[in-house]
């Protein structure tokens, strides 16, 4: 193709108008495959000598008899004005593109036909591929010799691209896109934290792709009715030495397990109290910075991983940095072990540290322990499973004496989720947490949860929740109804 284009480019400006038209006309009517198939060869053959008159001479006859391309006035040779020349150049350019496309399409067809012929070994009479083009399925192993005679289901349309249609390959490197809608309806009374009766909240748009051989990137944008926020946006370096895995960007912080999970994969429609009270609010702790995780070999098949993270010292509701150099740090160590094939246990410990902004040097320290026990007999894994999890966390917040001095707040939750049928889950959760800024006050809560999955891509959930808010001395009983639905790329199942 390049030779054809190059030739036209060289010839175009210099040839007499008639010759150019003749040349163009000769190619225009060539719609029959047989004729067209010769075109690239002819072009190639005549390219090397770069003798302008040669190709047109061979085709002028046909060209004059052919209908002229639309818009081309059959102009006899006459002194050309600059406009004419420009117009002709444009015309040639258009034609060149058109023919390149058509030739590309034909070449593809030829390749497919040749591939088809080569892939049908059952017919001994199969003619050798016309131009010696061989079906070379990239990277294909030795072809199935005694393979079934029909390589593709009959009626499968050949994957020929339509000439002129945008190439599908332009989509190959697009990130996979998915959207998870999250609708929440609330009934009941709560005078402390008043959720709206109905809300489309934190719906998530995920864009994920491999960056290059060394990294992948993940963006999770959360859409609420108030606006859009970057919940996470990070690059993961997957090819580091020494069993390291690094993430750079904005991410959910590895403090415990629940804080790392997106809202839509939580077993509840809401965040448990300790996260709300001690990790900065309903969204939990999201940090912008760097995370490095390393596998630490332990004897046996025990998985152990240490994560060290450094973030900007600002995080709404949790950290506030008076100076740029005040950073927040987090460390998480977790151990996972299969106790039996059906039963496994994860235990983790977290420690975090950062400026809280109440004075120049005031810090908040966070400590946490998380435990998750999963039971899922593999044969009946589709129908029954049990997850029991709990976290305990402590916040030690330095505050000026005027606002109560140092506050040591403790929070915990314990929850269980049992799958009783393929699409049905029931769960319960107990929770209690002091308030980070005033640890004398302890909020408590309990909840019952029922979840139904119509399919893997949608989920209906009801939570009956009772919370006691100690500062306000309020008891709130609410029903939360959540509908989640996912469209787009199929993500991995959370574990």
């Amino acid at each position, binding site marked *: 193709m390049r030779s054809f284009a190059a030739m036209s480019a060289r010839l175009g400006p210099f040839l007499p108008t008639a010759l150019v038209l003749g040349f163009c006309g000769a190619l225009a009517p060539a719609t029959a495959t047989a004729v067209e198939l010769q075109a690239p060869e002819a072009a190639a053959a005549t390219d090397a000598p770069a003798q302008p008159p040669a190709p047109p001479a061979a085709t002028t006859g046909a060209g004059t008899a052919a209908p002229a391309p639309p818009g081309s006035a059959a102009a006899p040779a006459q002194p050309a004005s600059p406009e004419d020349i420009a117009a002709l150049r444009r015309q040639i350019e258009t034609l060149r593109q058109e023919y390149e496309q058509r030739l590309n399409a034909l070449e593809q067809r030829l390749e497919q036909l040749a591939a088809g012929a080569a892939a049908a070994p059952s017919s001994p009479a199969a003619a050798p591929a016309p131009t010696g083009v061989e079906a070379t399925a990239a*990277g294909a192993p030795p072809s199935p010799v005694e393979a079934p005679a029909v390589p593709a289901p009959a009626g499968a349309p050949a994957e020929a691209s339509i000439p002129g249609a945008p190439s599908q390959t332009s989509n190959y490197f697009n990130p996979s896109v998915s959207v998870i809608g999250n609708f929440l309806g609330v009934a009941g009374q709560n005078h402390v934290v008043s959720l709206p009766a109905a809300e489309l909240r934190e719906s998530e748009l995920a864009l994920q792709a491999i960056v290059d051989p060394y990294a992948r990137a993940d963006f999770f944008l959360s859409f609420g009715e108030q606006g859009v926020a970057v919940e996470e946006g990070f690059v993961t370096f997957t090819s580091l030495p020494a069993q390291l895995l690094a993430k750079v960007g904005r991410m959910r912080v590895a403090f415990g397990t629940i804080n790392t999970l997106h809202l839509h994969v939580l077993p509840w429609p809401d965040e448990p109290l300790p996260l709300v009270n001690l990790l900065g609010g309903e969204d939990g702790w999201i940090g912008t910075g760097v995370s490095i995780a390393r596998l*630490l070999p332990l004897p046996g098949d025990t998985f152990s991983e240490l994560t*060290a993270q450094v973030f900007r010292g600002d995080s709404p509701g949790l950290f506030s940095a008076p100076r740029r150099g005040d950073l927040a740090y987090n*460390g998480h160590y977790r151990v996972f072990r299969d106790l039996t094939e059906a039963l496994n246990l994860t235990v983790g*410990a977290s420690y975090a540290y950062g400026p809280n902004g109440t004075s120049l040097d005031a810090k908040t320290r966070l400590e946490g322990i998380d435990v998750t026990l999963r039971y899922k007999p*593999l044969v009946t894994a589709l129908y029954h499973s049990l997850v029991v999890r709990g976290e305990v966390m402590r916040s030690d917040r330095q505050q000026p004496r005027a606002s109560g001095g140092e506050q040591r707040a403790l929070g915990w939750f314990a929850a269980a989720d049992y799958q009783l049928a393929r699409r049905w889950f029931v769960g319960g959760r107990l929770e209690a947490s002091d308030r980070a800024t005033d640890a004398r006050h302890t909020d408590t809560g309990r909840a019952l949860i029922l979840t139904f999955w119509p*399919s893997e891509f949608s989920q209906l959930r009801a939570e009956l929740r009772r919370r006691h808010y100690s500062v306000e001395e309020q008891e709130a009983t609410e029903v939360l109804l959540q509908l989640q639905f996912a469209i787009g790329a199929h993500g991995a199942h959370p574990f």
Partner: protein
Amino acid sequence: MTAPHHPFRLLAATCLAAFAGLAAPMTAAAKMHVVTSLQDFASITAAIGGDRVDVVALAKGYQDPHYVDAKPSFVLQLSRANLLEVAGLELELGYLPPLIDQSRNDAVHPGSPGYLDLSIGCDILQRPTQVVTRAMGDVHPYGNPHYWTDPENGRVIARSIAARLSELDPTGAATYAKNLAAFEARLTAKEKEWDAKMAPYAGTRVVTFHESWPNFAKHFKLAIVGTVEPKPGIPPTPSHTLEIINLILAQKVPGILVEPYFDHKTPNYIAQKTGAKVLLFYPSVGGIPAITDYFALFDTNIDTFVDAMKGRR
């Protein structure tokens, strides 16, 4: 775990130890460490690799291969692997990508020589010929991933594995070639036996629970006329169950093929209403302990089928 009194000191010490390079020294692996998604591939790999490979399958033969948990213990397996063999066609979509990302092992990333998609070169059925949407259920847009249930695809898989092992471990090439030849010879002999056993039942109509058997049905000339699942991944519904009952009665379908990991309640009910037999069909090696390898997989399923059909003809 330790109490949270001084976790910082503990963590700091662990950090230091970890990052100061107490990395487990990678012993020069005498054996190729191969991880496969399915036990079927592990069985074939063991046959080809012999003593030169060490092979571990992530999914068990008796679990639904679509729903495998991405357990961190699998990360450990992948971190040590020289070769990862997958079914591809998005069968492992739910668990493998995050495991590969966390493996810290370049060798097993897609595109590396240590990542082998075994669907390449196999006869893949049910490639969608129209636009797919999830209204069709959990469809696989690249075709049906249960292709290893055709023994001829097993041959292709074995060749792929032998070729890749030889590429990664050239000194073993002769061994792999020899083992491949032995595997193929045995497969050819076994196929004759299986084909002969199944020949009397060519054209028999069956209903399956899930779309796991088109390749098996094609090779052994069975006609799948319906599935108990109304759509892939959607559990049976009363109205669809009724349709299947009517279909079985109308077409005189003698058998319902059900994988071990599906609930047998609906198939048993259908059987009771129609007189068709529920046949426990194992899609993978390891489905029961007796299915020790790829050959035993076909032996077991074919014997089950033939035994059930004997009384009916």
